[in-house]
């Protein structure tokens, strides 16, 4: 209920409005103090979840891969961006494997084997993704055709 509705109900009595506002403040404070019921474990993040690899080239490889892997919990975020614990554990997994000398493409396909192409933001070259690759080309061709038509129309006037 809005404050205005509350004061109307109480016949515009300012005392009532004040009382209502006070209840609102108490409710707001309680909401701030309440901890959200998000189920998270009590364990600290995995070692490499929020720590860069000492080798800059490897860290760059890991970062590039993590930005292309989709978080299973906060779907729509990459595991590089997500605060979810599972994303942290996946960052740890990516960094550990890169540090052990595994190629990013091998890690990606290992994850695709588990979760399907869903896990990767990079579009595949499978037939399902062909419209994605062909649409820009088709749009370019359509644009070229439109321009050509306009030039022809102008020339004929």
């Amino acid at each position, binding site marked *: 209920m809005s404050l205005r509705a509350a004061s109307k109900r109480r016949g515009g009595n300012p005392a009532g409005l004040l009382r209502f506002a006070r209840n609102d403040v108490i409710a707001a404070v309680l909401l701030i103090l309440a901890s959200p*019921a998000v*189920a*998270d*474990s*009590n*364990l600290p993040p*995995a070692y490499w979840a929020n720590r860069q690899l000492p080798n800059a080239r490897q860290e760059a490889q890991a970062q590039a891969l993590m930005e292309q892997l989709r978080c*299973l*919990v906060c*779907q729509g975020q990459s595991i590089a961006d997500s605060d979810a*614990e*599972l994303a942290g*554990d*996946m960052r*740890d*997994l990516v960094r550990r494997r890169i540090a052990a000398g595994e190629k990013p493409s091998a890690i990606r396909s290992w*994850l*695709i*084997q*588990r*979760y*399907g192409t*869903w*896990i990767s933001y990079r579009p595949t070259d499978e037939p399902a993704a062909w419209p994605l690759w062909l649409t820009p080309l088709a749009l370019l061709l359509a644009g070229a055709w439109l321009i050509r038509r306009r030039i022809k129309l102008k020339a004929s006037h």
Partner: protein
Amino acid sequence: MSRGLRLIPLILLLFLLSGLAWRLIKPADTAVPSQMVEREVPPFALPPALPGEPGLTAADLASGKPHLLNIFASWCIPCASEGKVLQELQRRGVTVDGIAIRDTPEALAAFLARNGDPYQRIGSDRQSDTQIALGSSGVPETFVIDAHGVIRRQYIGALNDSNIPGVLREIEEVR
């Protein structure tokens, strides 16, 4: 421009609107199914989740009889409600093994004391490594594993009473 071409934007708009309406009426399923179903359990070896109890390895799951593999955690709220269902399945002869995700022995012991313990073995997966190797995307999840250690079915989310006949049938089928 011909009349037909003029209708294109309108048709595109209708196309867009019907797409939006479709997804509003029938929201997309956000569960990410494991691609490991119908494949062998990947190799893993987890230490015991409770001191003095057995841990869990992939070999334990290919023991010549079907297993139910439950991915759970003491900090997972739906997992508590699932306890009764798993115990009922265990009472009916199903071997239930568990993988505890990011858990501590103390919290796990308290959880089992509170909700019952249907597990034959519980492996401790402190960095979700085995969970990821199984293609599992959260807790709770349950895998039906056949006598040869091949994953045959994945249940995403907590099992409830209505799942019991189905799970029993599947366990019987993969025996």
